């Protein structure tokens, strides 16, 4: 499978990573546990045994509906959340491994968040926000920091004279540019972008997507691009991973995954996205996925998707499928490669 071959190029490796969140345990629950009702089952399995790799200079898109574990996975790769099991390696160096916090947090991975309002300190001048990290890590001296900040402001399409201003003086799109400048000023090898355009209007979204595409070219960034927006992910990604309830159900080149999906969930998800209709009087029928997203506290056994899947068989209700080659990509379905989707 193409996932692990050509190891010389592989830059980010995620091996069997999992993360559980155990909710606060009440006295009643503890008594129930003492009486034999398993506590462990009430934990949210936000990410379950995920393995993947990203090559140097590659953009891996991570798509999935709300609660599928995208942010949790991104935060573990970034080194700001400790996994329950598994490890993350950047360029061969282990930055995170199961259960342990690393001795020093890596600056090689930087993260950009969805909400540029929340991620910038409202009381700090944006120039200071951008310079803080690089000064602390010795990337630039205090004396040279203004020129450094101005360089990055210019790079992300902002007025270099804006450095003394405060976040509230900027629009949403401009704040996202500031957040990008702050991340890039740390000279990261890897950028994890968690829904970076989700809160932006489409005209501003287009500006920021163009900025990502340009920066990626010039700085040969390796990127994990997280979004629930399938069109955006397709546009920026070389390869794409589809998540459902904590697991990767399909991964491959963007082209393969979008034009020839192998997992029933991917296929149904793509079909449920409304398309621009340009023909007069065309009868449009929506193709929703039946049922609800199950609670991540109690995902269905076997294949997590079996309750909503039109192809499910008895086996799907008990045996969790593993990722295996199908088409030009890999899919975690017992019948991957054998299914005929009607479109």
């Amino acid at each position: 499978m193409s996932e692990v071959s050509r190891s010389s190029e592989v830059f980010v490796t995620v091996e069997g990573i999992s993360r559980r969140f155990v909710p606060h345990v009440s006295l009643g629950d503890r008594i129930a546990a003492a009486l034999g009702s398993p506590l462990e089952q009430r934990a949210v399995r936000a990410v379950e045994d995920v393995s993947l790799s990203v090559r140097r200079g590659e953009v891996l898109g991570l798509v999935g509906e709300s609660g599928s574990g995208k942010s949790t996975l991104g935060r573990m790769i970034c080194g700001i959340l400790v996994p329950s099991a598994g490890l993350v390696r950047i360029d061969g160096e282990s930055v995170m491994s199961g259960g342990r916090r690393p001795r020093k947090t890596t600056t090689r991975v930087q993260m950009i968040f969805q909400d540029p309002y929340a991620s910038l300190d409202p009381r700090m001048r944006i120039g200071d926000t951008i310079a803080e990290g690089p000064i602390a890590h010795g990337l630039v001296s205090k004396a040279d920091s203004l020129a450094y900040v101005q360089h990055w402001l210019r790079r992300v399409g902002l007025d270099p004279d804006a450095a003394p201003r405060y976040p509230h003086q900027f629009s949403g799109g401009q704040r996202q540019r500031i957040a990008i400048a702050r991340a890039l000023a740390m000279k990261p090898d890897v950028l994890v972008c968690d829904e970076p355009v989700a809160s932006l209007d489409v005209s501003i979204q287009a500006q920021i997507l163009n900025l990502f595409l340009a920066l990626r070219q010039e700085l040969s960034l390796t990127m994990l691009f997280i979004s629930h927006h399938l069109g955006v992910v397709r546009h920026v990604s070389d390869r794409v991973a589809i998540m459902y309830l904590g697991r990767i159900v399909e991964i491959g080149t963007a082209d393969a995954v979008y034009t020839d999906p192998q997992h029933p969930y991917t296929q149904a998800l793509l079909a449920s996205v409304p398309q621009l209709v340009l023909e007069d009087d065309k009868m449009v029928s929506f193709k929703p996925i039946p049922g609800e997203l199950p609670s991540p506290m109690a995902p269905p056994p076997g294949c997590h998707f079996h309750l909503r899947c039109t192809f499910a068989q008895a086996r799907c209700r008990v045996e969790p499928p593993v990722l295996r080659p199908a088409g030009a990509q890999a899919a975690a379905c017992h019948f991957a490669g054998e299914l005929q989707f009607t479109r």
Partner: protein
Amino acid sequence: MTARLLEVRHLATHFFTRAGVVKAVDDVSFDLEVGEVIGLVGESGSGKSMTGYSLLGLIDPPGRIVQGSIKLKGQELVGLPQEALRKLRGRRIAMVFQDPMTTLNPVLTIADQIHLAINAHERVSTATARQRAVDVLTRVGLPDADRRLDAYPHEFSGGMRQRVAIAIALLHRPDVIIADEPTTALDVSIQAQILAEMKSLVRDLGMALIWISHDLAVVSAMASRILVMYGGRIVESGPTASVLRDPRHHYTRGLLNSLPSRAAPGQPLTQISGLPPSLGALPPGCAFHPRCPRADAICLTAPETTGHERRDWRCHHPLTAVSA
């Protein structure tokens, strides 16, 4: 001649704030026919919700309707006393909001909320209310409606709550439903369920729908006509497919070009430069001129609405029609 279902003419809703006048809705005109679905699109802050609120008479100070007329089956709504408007709301015009909790009361069961909503306009027994609740919830695709009536909103997923809010809007079979981004906060697989249900409801019940959204694809699949809003004004309108295939206003074209599906993967999108204007400090003339590639001196004066048949636009230099 039978009156149009809804006739909006030169509607203007302004907010008189300390910082100045915010022209949230300015000179908006459109018609809505019985059973028709129109889409109102535009970016954040362009005045979509305020247009919807104006139709419902829900504009609070410092805002007010400063000009124009809204006729529902010939009856003028602008200037009606609050009490008369309250009687219309829910019964003849209803609204569905992006956040269903705007409609739902967190401390009441679904059955109680629906009973209250019915009581706002007619007196019915608890048993009758329950039966109507089951009927209307089943209509919007809520499984086991009977069993779920005594649940509270927090026991429902976001998609389920939105279905309940839609069910409440349907209770009195209003002539017009204004749906303000009702699926924007939902996951795509759930959004598709609600879009499919709304579409068949409108068809089966013959209701008219104003679908507010910033998502052109959703509107293109829902609405037969589209109104494109920018800076509080409708800058272009017409049959949806025709407008999207053949935009005449530069903003409409810019919006379309901003969609990732409009460029090959990895290729730069044709972006609109600059930022949307603040409605409290609109540029003079055509509000789009600072961002428009075609703007010249004449654009500093406001363009009139021009066009033909059911297509119109507000632009001094409209794009030329590509197809007939």
